[in-house]
């Protein structure tokens, strides 16, 4: 526990964030440039789906990030509930809007892919529906965080929501195996190795790195904002109480 609480010290964290932030931005800019170049110029068109398959290079990384951010939020919420680690709630709060944005993007880009390939913008298929539920969980989490004047109660209530909602993450992952879905099954991460050709796998992985670096960069900005906002709240309280 002593080790964990060393990082709970906001001054220490701010120092670390100051180092991580420019690196994350640099990794993002580099990988998004390489990733986009490969997605449009080196990756071939799909033999069945033609050029529309290029939507995959934003759709799949966005969907991975949607689940990754929720997992981060759930783990941080558990740490916040169990150990009352002050940075845990801050990181979960800061993650929620980024995760919601990626979830929205995975739905929107999927829809733009579905229209020409499936002939419809939307179907109530298990994969699509469970991702829509994920978007609602993010929105509910953010609403709950904002619904309390007392930050401790807000943290507790929203952490419980994040943990209960985590049951949806494996449902999303395995929805394509458990039910007959229009959505295609996993092809990158599966038993017996990836079934996607390297010429398509590489741009996909580089775009995934780009999105992850973007998340780390924006997370650092948002966490720093939360910590300064905490200081502002303390100063205002002191003013009210004539301190």
């Amino acid at each position, binding site marked *: 526990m002593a080790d964990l609480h060393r990082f709970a010290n906001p001054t220490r964290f701010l120092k670390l964030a100051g180092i991580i932030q420019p690196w994350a931005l640099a990794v993002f800019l580099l990988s998004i440039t390489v990733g986009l170049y490969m997605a449009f110029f080196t990756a071939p068109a799909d033999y069945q789906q033609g050029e529309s398959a290029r939507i995959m290079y934003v759709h799949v990384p966005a969907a991975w990030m949607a689940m990754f951010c929720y997992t981060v939020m759930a783990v941080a919420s558990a740490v916040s509930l169990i150990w009352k680690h002050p940075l845990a709630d801050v990181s979960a709060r800061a993650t929620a809007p980024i995760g919601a944005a990626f979830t929205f993007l995975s739905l929107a880009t999927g829809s*733009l892919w579905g229209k020409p390939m499936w002939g419809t913008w939307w179907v109530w298929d298990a994969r699509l529906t469970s991702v829509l539920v994920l978007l609602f969980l993010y929105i509910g989490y953010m609403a709950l965080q904002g619904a309390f004047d007392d930050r401790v109660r807000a943290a507790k209530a929203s952490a419980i929501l994040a943990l209960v909602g985590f049951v949806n993450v494996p449902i999303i992952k395995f929805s394509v195996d458990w039910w007959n879905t229009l959505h295609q099954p996993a092809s990158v991460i599966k038993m017996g190795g990836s079934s996607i050709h390297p010429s398509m796998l590489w741009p996909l992985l580089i775009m995934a790195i780009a999105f992850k670096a973007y998340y780390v960069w924006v997370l650092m*900005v948002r966490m720093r904002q939360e910590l300064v906002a905490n200081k502002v709240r303390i100063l205002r309280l002191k003013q009210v109480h004539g301190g």
Partner: protein
Amino acid sequence: MNEFLEMGGYAAFVWPAYGLSAGVLVVIAWLSIRDLKNTQNTFEKLSGEKEKSK
């Protein structure tokens, strides 16, 4: 060049997918940086006032 922009007839789906993604990522980053700057300004103002009142 035109052939590239046409995306094999899927331009109406491919470009909006990339445009929307770029738009959302830029907006989230911009809002986050703006919030940080605003909060930092408020903090400096408040701590400045406190110094003066001492």
